[in-house]
């Protein structure tokens, strides 16, 4: 049984595309057959984050308009056993696609893949409606900021109104040192306010920026904390119970506290 996930957030720049790339690559590393779909028509980015921008021939709109077959537009990521990308069109606008066409596309992909992960555009307009149309499950990405959490709340309401009940939260770019010093909201603060189950917490990590620069998902980086967080998220998607990461391991602060024997509360 294949599953279609949409990765959404409302606000832009919180890490939807990075989350999509890492969950997709992570699932592929677990021997699942995965299709990543960039639903951000007109502003495609997933290809660049995945490092596949030079291999695009056809795109999502070409498939929908019948200019090519689905298989011709799917780019195989050679670094992973079974990972494919369906890129967005860059020169069309969001109204080039209807919700009905997106549903049909998702159905076609279900025949071939175990997991279909859709990268949703920011906003709540047609692009958002298209991206969620064919999805079974939704993942809401947010950061611990007032504006991002506010938009996440709006998105959760809209998802539920569109029959995507019980979305899951990924809290991205958490800085544990700031949470400790009460200068950043914690996961608990965010989940107190949003009525949503948690899929994962991803620490703010320079390795993500480096990975994005190189065009390779961080999930395969064994040394990266964010990579570990994404591997945990993938295991949870596959049904395992994995405790939330202790974001407090390593670092100078921890080392100091250990040295002086002070305990964290």
């Amino acid at each position, binding site marked *: 049984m294949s599953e279609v996930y949409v990765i959404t957030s409302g606000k832009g720049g919180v890490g939807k595309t990075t989350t999509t790339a890492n969950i997709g690559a992570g699932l592929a590393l677990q021997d699942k057959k995965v299709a990543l779909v960039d639903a951000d028509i007109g502003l495609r980015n997933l290809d660049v984050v995945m490092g596949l921008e030079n291999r695009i021939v056809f795109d999502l709109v070409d498939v929908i308009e019948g200019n090519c077959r689905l298989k011709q537009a799917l780019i195989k990521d050679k670094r992973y056993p079974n990972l494919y990308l369906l890129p967005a069109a860059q020169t069309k606008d969001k109204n080039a696609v209807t919700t009905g066409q997106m549903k049909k596309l998702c159905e076609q992909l279900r025949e071939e893949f175990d997991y279909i992960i859709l990268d949703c555009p920011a906003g709540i307009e047609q692009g958002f409606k298209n991206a969620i149309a064919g999805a079974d499950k939704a993942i809401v990405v947010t950061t611990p*900021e*007032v504006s991002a*959490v506010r938009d996440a*709340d709006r998105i959760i*309401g809209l998802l539920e109104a569109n029959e995507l009940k019980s979305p899951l939260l990924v809290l991205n770019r958490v800085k544990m040192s700031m949470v400790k*010093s009460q200068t*950043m*909201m914690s996961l608990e*603060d965010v989940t107190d*306010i949003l009525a949503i189950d948690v899929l994962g917490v991803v620490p703010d990590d320079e390795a993500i920026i480096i990975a994005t620069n190189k065009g390779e998902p961080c999930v395969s980086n064994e040394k990266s904390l964010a990579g570990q967080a994404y591997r945990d998220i993938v295991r949870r998607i596959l049904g395992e119970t994995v405790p939330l990461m202790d974001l407090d391991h390593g670092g100078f602060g921890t080392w100091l506290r250990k040295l002086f024997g002070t305990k964290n509360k």
Partner: protein
Amino acid sequence: MKWLNDLFGRKPAPAQIARDRLKLVLTYDRVNCQPDLLEMLKNDIMKVLLNYMDIDEEELDIQISQTTSELNEIVPVLFANIPIKNMRKQP
């Protein structure tokens, strides 16, 4: 925690400020996203009140607004202005 901060003349922590602002902004958002909610609330309040008094339904005003609490925090509040025409006699 607030009284502690007041005691030592400290300002609330930025995370606390963020939490408070977020709660307030979401209270408004959630009401505004469900325009029916206030209307339903209005009708229910009227039903109860009509057991006790005649009210001026035309002039009835119900909204979510904000006020300053005893702890000097800004909190959301349900504001209702309901002109009474006549009190009903209790049986």
